[in-house]
């Protein structure tokens, strides 16, 4: 897998780190070499069909719904001017701050039998249990809806860029060639924006495949819940890894779709110098109607669940804000901070490795390692768990033989395991930011500085650090928040008696202690808003340039 063209220290260092980062994934696929006939026979007879159909239905449902929500929203924001458009533009990103398992339990509290909506219906119409129909939120379609409400921003962001980058000359050319408005939309706009929309949908579908919290809470059997059950229920790690390998294969297909789309986007945007056409003004009732429709996903995906959390929090905060909560916040924050530091340091190292080495090998290895974002947290966690417990066993045997001392589970039972898994999953987030920053530090700047005869360290201090610091900061922020929200890997790998906000929220919600779960959930959401606002500011800045 790793190919060293020359054995310089960069290749060696980067190669070793990448080997560590890739090992869990390799192990997942290596597990296929150890067939577990009994477990698989059992799975095939009972739940395997459910896992496959539910996971596929969930992912495709989410894929379709995020396009239906995010596409028209992006079109309205990109092409029309209406009341509140400039605010809606960034408010539409807020649902990104809402982890799916939190929105799921908010709506459950709101819509289940004892919740305020059904109670109010019963009170006003005098209905009794079983006398009326009400859609069940704890269902596959409920899960599709919940996930779509928080994942549509992926499509929205990418489609908005695609729609607003359409040069005005494109539309005018089409018109001068006798093309009607609907022909323009169906023959030109949609085909040209299709790669961007598909890429957004692919990212959302990857998240849907990876989701554990929502489906577990709703009691839907999917691959992720299956991996958990096989590992903890049947106690078969190898079979769990094999299930994870199956899941990964589905995700790989999405990855190919994403790659294909990314390449198309690059080709399609070549040579477009003209600015976009000015937005059409929508006045009066039409403007208000469009604004209302655009607000709908924001209200459903963010305002209502946050309102629900606030309401619960107000009723429970006095009992909740105790020493245990403080240690929960402390655990979450320092875990997230350590991970952010580790991941961003790796990203900086890799970014420089790519910059200073033209060797194809290093680039390929780093790019492969950054694909971890596509892998479900459950998958990476299972792989890491298998390999680290094995290493711990060897290590303890070794130290016992040599020093008559056993250090215990130093790799699999400590935060090391968590940080490793987070690094694999979130490296791409940091790399993306660093690559963008690095593109600004053009090699000619280095050469210009060198021509003045200053030292390498001086160049780094006066040119690289100032130009890279925004990228490094936003990378830290994004990784920090992603770690804070992460659920399934944390559930599997956290050390004994180590709780985080995400884990606690999920445990309380699973125990139907919805009100008590509100405070830790609200903490996650509030911290999650920070990078969303920060990022929308950054894109505003770029657009105004």
């Amino acid at each position, binding site marked *: 897998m790793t190919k060293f063209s020359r054995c310089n220290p960069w290749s060696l260092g980067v190669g070793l780190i990448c080997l560590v980062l890739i090992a869990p994934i390799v192990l997942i696929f290596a597990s296929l070499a150890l067939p577990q006939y009994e477990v698989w026979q059992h799975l095939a007879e009972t739940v395997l069909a459910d896992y496959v159909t539910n996971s596929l239905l969930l992912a495709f449902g989410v894929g379709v719904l995020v396009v239906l929500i995010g596409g028209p929203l992006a079109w309205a924001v990109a092409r029309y001017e209406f009341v509140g458009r400039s605010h809606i533009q960034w408010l539409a990103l807020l649902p990104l701050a809402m982890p799916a398992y939190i929105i799921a339990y908010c709506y459950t509290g709101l819509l289940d039998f004892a919740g305020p909506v059904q109670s109010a219906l019963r009170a006003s119409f005098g209905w009794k249990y079983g006398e009326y129909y009400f859609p069940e939120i704890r269902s596959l379609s409920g899960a599709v809806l919940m996930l779509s409400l928080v994942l549509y921003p992926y499509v929205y962001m990418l489609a908005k860029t695609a729609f607003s980058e359409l040069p005005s000359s494109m539309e005018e*050319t089409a018109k*001068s*060639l*006798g093309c*009607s408005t609907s022909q323009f939309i169906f023959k030109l706009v949609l085909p*040209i924006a299709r790669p961007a929309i598909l890429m957004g949908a692919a990212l959302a579908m990857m998240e849907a495949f990876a989701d554990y919290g929502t489906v577990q809470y709703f009691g839907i059997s999917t691959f992720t819940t299956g991996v958990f059950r096989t590992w903890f229920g049947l106690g078969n790690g190898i079979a769990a890894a094999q299930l994870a390998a199956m899941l990964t294969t589905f995700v790989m297909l999405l990855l190919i779709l994403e790659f294909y789309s990314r390449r198309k986007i690059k*080709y399609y945007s*070549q*040579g477009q110098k*003209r600015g976009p056409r000015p937005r059409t003004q929508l006045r009066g009732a039409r403007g208000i109607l469009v604004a209302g429709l655009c607000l709908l996903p924001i209200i459903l995906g963010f305002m209502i669940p946050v309102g629900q959390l606030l309401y619960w929090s107000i009723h429970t905060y006095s009992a909740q804000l105790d020493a245990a909560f403080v240690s929960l916040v402390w655990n979450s924050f320092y875990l997230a901070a350590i991970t952010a530091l580790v991941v961003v340091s790796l990203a900086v190292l890799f970014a420089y490795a790519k910059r200073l080495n033209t060797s194809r090998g290093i680039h390929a290895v780093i790019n492969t390692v950054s694909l971890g974002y596509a892998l479900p947290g459950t998958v990476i966690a299972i792989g890491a768990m298998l390999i680290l417990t094995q290493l711990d066993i060897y290590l303890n045997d070794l130290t016992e033989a040599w020093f008559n001392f056993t250090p215990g589970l130093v790799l699999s039972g400590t935060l090391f395991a968590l940080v490793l898994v987070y690094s694999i999953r979130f490296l791409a987030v940091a790399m993306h930011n660093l690559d963008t920053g690095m593109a600004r530090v053009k090699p000619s700047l280095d050469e210009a500085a060198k021509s003045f005869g200053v030292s390498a360290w001086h160049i780094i201090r006066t040119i690289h650090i100032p130009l890279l610091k925004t990228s490094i900061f936003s990378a830290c922020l994004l990784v920090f928040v992603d770690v804070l929200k992460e659920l399934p890997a944390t559930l599997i790998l956290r050390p004994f008696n180590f709780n985080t906000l995400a884990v606690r929220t999920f445990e309380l919600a699973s125990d139907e202690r919805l009100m008590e779960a509100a405070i830790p959930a609200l903490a996650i959401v509030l911290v999650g808003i920070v990078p969303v606002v920060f990022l929308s500011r950054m894109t505003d800045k770029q657009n105004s340039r």
Partner: protein
Amino acid sequence: MLRLTDVAIGYDSQTVVDNLDLHLEAGQIGCLLGASGCGKTSILRAIAGFQEVTCGQISLRSNVVSEPNTMLAAQKRNIGVVFQDYALFPHMTVAQNIAFGLHRLSKDERQQRVRELLNLVGLNGLEERYPHGLSGGQQQRVALVRAMAPKPDLLLLDEPFSSLDSELREALAIELRSILKHENTTALLVTHDQYEAFAMADVIGVMHQGKLMQWADAYTLYHQPNSKAVANFIGEGVLLSGKVAEHKQIDCALGTFNQTNQRTYSVGQSVSFLIRPDDIILDPSSAIRAKVIDKAFRGSHIWYRLQLLSPDTQQQVICLAPSHHNYAIHESLGIRLDLKHLIVFAD
């Protein structure tokens, strides 16, 4: 074919083009020439139907297509447009791009027309390529034939060469002209580059600050500009100041000349008149002496900036001397004026 009468164009109470009249015959190639921001692209957009006029009217084949508050949709004008960025549809092949405007033809006719056009611009064999796989010059040719494919009454070209390397431009301009002439297309292009305009157009309009200053062929614009703005914009040259003397004569540092144009100036009025580099001839026997200030070697010619050595003047002229007349800077030489047209402007 195309007629604009008293046209004005404005955006939000700001007028960018005013009082514009022009006329283009069928088969003619016209050009609007001017610095950026002079309103020439607005005129093109108004003719294409992307921009309303605030005054006057635009007619095409004697039918009014634009008037204040009424505008025939761009789709119904039968006008082809080639944009500065070409606006090729990135998801379609070359053939699909060219066939885009041919939706009324049958499949066979469409293929036939596409082949014919690709042949015309020498792009046979590139039918299945995508725009991102073409060079800049190839993209431009595809954009051109795509606009020409439905046989429009009028073809509009907005800065068609601006995205190309400067070495390519003039050659392509000449090629483009022969393609347009071959198809007998009526065309109007917009450019800021006078050499492109000279190479392409039968008739050129010089635009300055939203007004059409002069609408004439290249020779007339160069030798008989009707205003200082046109004289300054077109070609090289200097405006030499002089004074009107008795008997309709004008005195200046280079001698006394008879005034030939219709306008008469009062005696004693100060005027300027246009001296082109080709009006100055090196003549060692001449009594008028000048000193070389700047020079630039241009292959067949040497470009000189000369300072007149008459005692009462600080004035300068420009001269293009044949290449073997090589003088050093500060060297003094004799010059003679060979004026075919005396172009005088009041100061």
